[in-house]
Every structure is written in structure tokens, then in C-alpha cells.
């Protein structure tokens, strides 16, 4: 019975209902969109890391710690047999890591120098640019961020100084052969990439490597010869930690949006409910109990939320779909800020997000409908009939 009356009230109120529904639908849209954008941003960062850096996982030299450059000096050896056979089958590629200093325009800059096979196809890096150069200089691949920091361009020469396996400092001229446009700042900032064979020869580390990155969906190698297997879960854990660390921020943002939505809905509900004081008095006079009056107005709020969800689908669905497919272009490059950010942000709408947002917004609508209607239902029917304002 209440449902019938509530529905009749909603449909009968027309403009008031439309405005209420639009406010709620816009809140739905805003929360979904912003949260999906945020989710998309983080998922994209994870995906980029996997595509350009991690692939299926890696085997690390036991001394290697990517967060401690002091370990690089000792973190190299010939590959264990089974890992070497992965490389031979083109299912993996070795990387030799060392510290180096570069001198662009005479300034000294410490860097991480990585030797990588130019013909690798496992990670999405333009390493083929390192192939086919003569031995007169060291071909160097750098990222756009690094190029900007060092003011180097393709064809520019600069001095590279390194410490080889015999603990002897040596130096030679490097030439920038390509500036890569990568979203992964970890490949870019403070890094120079050179051909693996050249690195081995420069460092006097023939046949050696620091780590080996292998292709996706490969079974684990049985005999790793003391090297440490680092699967994809391990390698993305820092990214996941960043995502996890960002969660409170995301939740706060979500709560702020929800609070804004709630305030909008509350405002609309309070206005509509308090303006209907005389109507509430009339309903009480013809025999509706206070509980039913509260139930009626709360139910109207609930129906409002249901209609708003439908309105979101109809009016904002195409917008959500469009951005979900085409993304939103970002006006600035965030790579230099040390962030993995896509050129186009694509929001990700998960079922969990849609369901939780719908449930949460509906709950908020119910609560903000319940509070003012409970207040007005506490009035004396005689006051309500006079349309007296509630203090």
C-alpha cells in the first residue's frame, strides 16, 4: 500500500521528482566516473609496468637489489644453465646492470647503465634502436624524461664513465641513438640503455648478467642455480603497495563525493519534505500513523534512488561508455614527475564499483529521506496541518 502511494506521489510530483532524480543521478555519475578514472589510472600503471618492464617475471642474481645501487658492483655472473637455455630459446633476455656517470654538456650525472639485447621482443621497449651501430661509440637509448633532464637529443655525444669488473674506471663516448617515449618512468629517469654485448665488453663481464626477464606464462625453471626467481606478483608488489597506499586517498575522495551527493540529495529531500508539512498533516488526519508517514517518505527516497540509477544508465550511461572506450587525453606529461600515467586515461568500471556505489548511494538516499521525515512526523498533526515550519 505504501509503495503504491509513494509511487503515485513520485509520479504525480513530476518536476520535483525529475529534479530529485537528476541530482541523485548526477551524483551517481560523478562517483562512478571519478572512482573509475582513479581505478583506471592505477590499473594502467600496473599494466604498463608489466608490459614494459616485468613481462612474466625475472630471475635475479642473488646479490641484486634494485633499490640499492651499491649491490650492482657484485650482482653479476654467468647465467645458470637452465636460465641460459630460456635465453637461447628467446623466451627470456638478460640484463646487465651497473652504476655509471655521464657528462652531458660537461655536467656530471650519476646513472644506472643497463645492457639489454637489442633484439629482445619480450618487453615493450624500442631496444631495436640499439642495433646496427659501429663500434666507434656506445649507442645509447634514453627516455624522454632523461633527455629533458640532460638536454640530450638524438645524435648528441656525451662521456660515459664506469667501473669494470677489474675495479678499473674507464670512459668512452656515448651517442644518443633514440629517445623513447615511455609511460614507465622507471625505464626512463636516471637510466641509460646500451646493447648487452657492448655492456659486457665495457664491464669485462663476458656472458654475465644481473637479472633475466622472461616471457609471460612460462613455467618456472627447476634449477635456478642460486638465482632468485621473482614472479610477477613479487615484481608488481611495489606497484600494488603504491595502489594500496593510495587507497585511503581514494576512499577519502569517494567519501567527499558521496558527502557532496548526500548533501545535494538531503537538501532536495528536506526542501520537498518540509514543504509538504500540510500534506503530512492531512495524511495523519485521515488516519495514517506516524510510522507510516516516515515509511512513506523514506520509501519515496528509496524509489528516488532506484529511478536515479535508471536515469544514470539512460542519461549518463553513454558518456560513461564513451570515456570507457576512448579515454580522456591528459594535457601534461606526468612521467617526469615520477608517475606512470597514460597519455589517455581510461576509466575502468568494475561490477564491484557499480554495485557498491549503487548500494551506497541508495543507502545514503534512504538515510537522508528518513531523517527529515522522522522529524516532521514527530510534529503535532495540528501543527503539520497548519503547515507550520519545523524547527
Amino acid at each position, binding site marked *: *500500500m505504501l509503495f*503504491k*502511494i509513494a509511487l*503515485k*506521489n513520485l509520479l*504525480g*510530483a*513530476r518536476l520535483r521528482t525529475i529534479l530529485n532524480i537528476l541530482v541523485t543521478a548526477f551524483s551517481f555519475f560523478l562517483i562512478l566516473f571519478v572512482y573509475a578514472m582513479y581505478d583506471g589510472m592505477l590499473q594502467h600503471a600496473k599494466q604498463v609496468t608489466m608490459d614494459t618492464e616485468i613481462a612474466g617475471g625475472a630471475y635475479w642474481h642473488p646479490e641484486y637489489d634494485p633499490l640499492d645501487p651499491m649491490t650492482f658492483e657484485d650482482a653479476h655472473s654467468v647465467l645458470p644453465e637452465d636460465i641460459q637455455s630460456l635465453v637461447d630459446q628467446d623466451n627470456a633476455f638478460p640484463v646487465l646492470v651497473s652504476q655509471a656517470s655521464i657528462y652531458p654538456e660537461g655536467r656530471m650525472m650519476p646513472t644506472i647503465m643497463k645492457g639489454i639485447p637489442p633484439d629482445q621482443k619480450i618487453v615493450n621497449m624500442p631496444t631495436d634502436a640499439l642495433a646496427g651501430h659501429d663500434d666507434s661509440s656506445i649507442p645509447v637509448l634514453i627516455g624522454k624524461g632523461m633527455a629533458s633532464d640532460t638536454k640530450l637529443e638524438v645524435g648528441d655525444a656525451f662521456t660515459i664513465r664506469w667501473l669494470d669488473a677489474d675495479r678499473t674506471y674507464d670512459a668512452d663516448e656515448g651517442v644518443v641513438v633514440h629517445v623513447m617515449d615511455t609511460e614507465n618512468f622507471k625505464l626512463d629517469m636516471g637510466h641509460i640503455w646500451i646493447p648487452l654485448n657492448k655492456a659486457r665488453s665495457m664491464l669485462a663481464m663476458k656472458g654475465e648478467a644481473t637479472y633475466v626477464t622472461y616471457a609471460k606464462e612460462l613455467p618456472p625453471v627447476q634449477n635456478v642455480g642460486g638465482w632468485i626467481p621473482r614472479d610477477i606478483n613479487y615484481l608488481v608488489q611495489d606497484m600494488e603497495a603504491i595502489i594500496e597506499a593510495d587507497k585511503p586517498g581514494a576512499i577519502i575522495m569517494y567519501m567527499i563525493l558521496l558527502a557532496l551527493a548526500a548533501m545535494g540529495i538531503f537538501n532536495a529531500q528536506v526542501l520537498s519534505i518540509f514543504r509538504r508539512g*500540510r*500534506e503530512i*498533516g*492531512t495524511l*495523519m*488526519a*485521515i*488516519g*495514517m*500513523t*506516524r*510510522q507510516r508517514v516516515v515509511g512513506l517518505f523514506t520509501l519515496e527516497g528509496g524509489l528516488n534512488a532506484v529511478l536515479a540509477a535508471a536515469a544514470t544508465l539512460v542519461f549518463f550511461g553513454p558518456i560513461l561508455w564513451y570515456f570507457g572506450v576512448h579515454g580522456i587525453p591528459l594535457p601534461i606529461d606526468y612521467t617526469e614527475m615520477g608517475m606512470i600515467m597514460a597519455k589517455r586515461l581510461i576509466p575502468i568500471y568494475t561490477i564491484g564499483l557499480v554495485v557498491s556505489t549503487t548500494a551506497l548511494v541508495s543507502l545514503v538516499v534512504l538515510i537522508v529521506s528518513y531523517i527529515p521525515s522522522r522529524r516532521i512526523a514527530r510534529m*503535532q*498533526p*495540528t501543527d503539520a*496541518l497548519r503547515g507550520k515550519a519545523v524547527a
Partner: protein
Amino acid sequence: MENTAVATINHLLKQFPVGGGFFTALNDVTLTFRKREFTGLVGPSGSGKTTLLNIIGGLDSPTEGTVNVLGKALDNTSHGERALLRRKHMGFIFQSYNLLPVYTVFENVELPLILNKVEEKERDEMVKEALEWVGLSDKINSRPAMLSGGECQRTAIARAIVHRPELVLADEPTANLDAENSHHIMEIMVKLNKELSTSFIFATHDEKIMAYLRRIIHLDDSQITEDEHIENPTGGPT
């Protein structure tokens, strides 16, 4: 006239808090309203007639004294029980009609029946019959904004009597109407009083209504000053 009491009031005192003190709206009122009576509470503004009507309707509570309506002692009943009493056995007519603006005439009249959980088919018949009594069969789908004052009040009357209540309480039902509409409304209520045996209690200071009343209770300064029974009310325009 049957002697069954529809409402009995004993030594009723009603006070409202005003500032630091109290305003006495009704003082030592003792009355009995009988079935099929057509009674008016008459007096100047502030004499307590609307307050008395609201107390009889269970919309307000007495400060002191007892009020018994249709066999229920209102001072001992909860909000819910009073709501049930109104829903089943009473009808209300207000000066400003109090129709729900988003509902059609039909839906406004149907509302008490929905609250009383009357089956849809029966509801439909009862609403149509009530609208026929008040002469609004042709306005069934109109909304209150599309009606004249007289038509709005006739809709309110239909809503008050659609569930065949034993008691109808009307607060200044003709105050917003012109003379012609006032007489028309009163004629309808006289007819319903006779045909449905419904008791009517009016709060009014409208002279036009008084000509139809069979009992006039004069209130002044919170007290009953005269209780007048009229054997043959003149009724109609003079």
C-alpha cells in the same frame, strides 16, 4: 433522533504553552454529541472551536478532563490507536481543503480507502459513488489546481465520507467559498447526514452554515456559553 453518543467530553481543559506561561484555549468544557447530530461549534476567532474539533478528532490531546469518541477514551490511547480511529470511523473537512495537489480528484478521494486496505474493485465503486453524491463525477481525472474552490471542497467532502465514517469533523468548511457554493456544500452535507446517518460537527462562524444546523454550541472565551437545539432549521439561502 437516536440517543447513542458519538463523543462525550467531561471537564475538558486545554492549555498551550505561550512564552513562560500558558494560554487556556478550552476551560471546563462538558458536552455530549449524539449520533446523526448536525452540530455547529460557533464563536469568534480564538474561542476554542477548532481546538475542540481537533481534540474530538484525536489530532490534539486534552490537558485535563476526559474525551470519549466512538467508545474510545482518547486520553488513554496511543497515536496509532487514534490514527486507526480516524482512519476507520472519522472524516475531516478543512477550511483550505487540504487536497493532495499531485493527486487527481479520484485519487484524493480514494486515499482513505487505500489506507483502510479496501479491495481495488470495491474502492473504485465507492469513490465513484462518493463523487456522485457531491456532483463531481465529471471531474474524476482533474487535479485540484484545475478545480474551483467549491469543487475542491466537494472533493474534500467526498474524501471525508467515502469510507462511510460515523463522524465527520469540518473546520470552517465554507470560509473560503462564496454564498452560492456555501449553500451547495451545506445541502450536500445535510443530505449525507440524512442518508448515511453520519454525525457532523462543524467549527464555524459563518452565518450561512448556522441556518442548516440542528444544534449550535456557542463558545466564547474558552467556555461554552450556550447549547442551542433547533427543531426545524431554516436552511438554504434566505
